[in-house]
């Protein structure tokens, strides 16, 4: 999964729906731990800023 940092508003919604706690937030940036990610696509679907891509269809 890829986060477009220019679109991301650091709202934390993606963190709330990640089933495996793969996403972390700091004051200025959100990061996905690719080793933990199971590519469920939840974060991409919830992201209000449409900043995440990469889910397999």
């Amino acid at each position, binding site marked *: 999964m890829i986060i477009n940092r220019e679109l991301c508003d650091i709202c934390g919604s993606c963190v709330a*729906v990640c089933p495996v706690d793969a996403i972390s*937030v700091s004051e200025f940036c959100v990061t996905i731990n690719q080793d933990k990610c199971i590519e469920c696509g939840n974060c991409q679907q919830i992201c209000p800023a449409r900043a995440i891509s990469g889910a397999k269809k």
Partner: protein
Amino acid sequence: MKHKNYDIVVIGAGPAGSVAARYAAEQGASVLMLERDREAGIPVRCAEGVSRNGIAPFIDINPKWIAATIDSACLHSPDGEQAYMYNNGTGYVLERRLFDTELCNLAITTGVEMLTKADAIGLEYSGEKITGVRFKHFGEIKIANCSIVIGADGVESRVGRWAGINTALALNDIDTCVQYTVSGIDFESDACHFYFGKKVSPGGYIWIFPKSGNTANIGIGISGDLAAEKGPKAYLDEFMKRTFPEAKVNYTVFGGVPTAWGLKEYIKDNIMLVGDAARQVNPITGGGIVQAMIAAGIAGQVAADSIKAGDQSKKFLLRYKKEWDSKLGKIQKTMYSMKERFMKMDDSKFNNLVRLCQSIPKEEFSLKKLFSVAMKGDPLLVAEIARAFVASKLK
């Protein structure tokens, strides 16, 4: 590495964190509150609507952080009808940046130690037992030892997960939101507006909350499970083009609102979650400020009691759950089952509901009246939902 000792560490300085910290410190506990951002209350990811009765127990009402006083709510049906519901002067639209700052100041003047730019990154353990919080403060990693951790870290909460609590929300239990603060339009200064409909805002609604000086918060929340193809911004942009083509957008925020009934587990030995972190938001309206403060007041008090009693076991801390359940937790579950029915309601039912509201003269408006009219008009479901909606929005 620096270590310092406290009775309680609160993570997050939103309404939940500030109130929990203050209530614990009032009882003599030593409390540290950590906030990741450079100050509490920004950015404001919120429509800023609250009821006066909801906030009054926690803070002296001060016009400085009130942007508008609300007398009525206007519901807009999918087919374009509208109905006003009155509830004189019982609602406020806040300046949340100032409101959150004041709550924070109240905590600090009660003796809470607060650090900003302090990003909690994990819990400290001795064996299985939580003994403190690890955090980054201006780039330096520090540890605060404590007997109790209160996770008040908002929708993006990870504190619970660190303690092995599953806080993950299903997509139908979170609304994905965007809000514009706009100017350039004459808004009614004392009414909130809500727009419903599958094409307008699937599984949620569009809101207009007026603020001072011809500005307003106009936002949308749609249910996460219905957001695969089209996100909230696309819906809101269509609405703006249709309804307020002349509006100027001053700023934009994105956000998520938990619409679950709560969490099965939010208390363990040495740890409690409060506010959005514990998903304590009204699942129908998405309002969470008052809920967060009520839960935090209880949790702060219980934390202080547990320090006095020398017992930080889950068993002791469950007093918080017991009191929350009796105050709001049970209502949350009712609201949640209503939300589920509300989500399945088709547009014609909403049209019906708004027409029922219209049939009640303004000066006679009361929930009782609405209920009796709705009963006569037929669908019990409609009556139930209207009642729940009004009660929870304005309570």
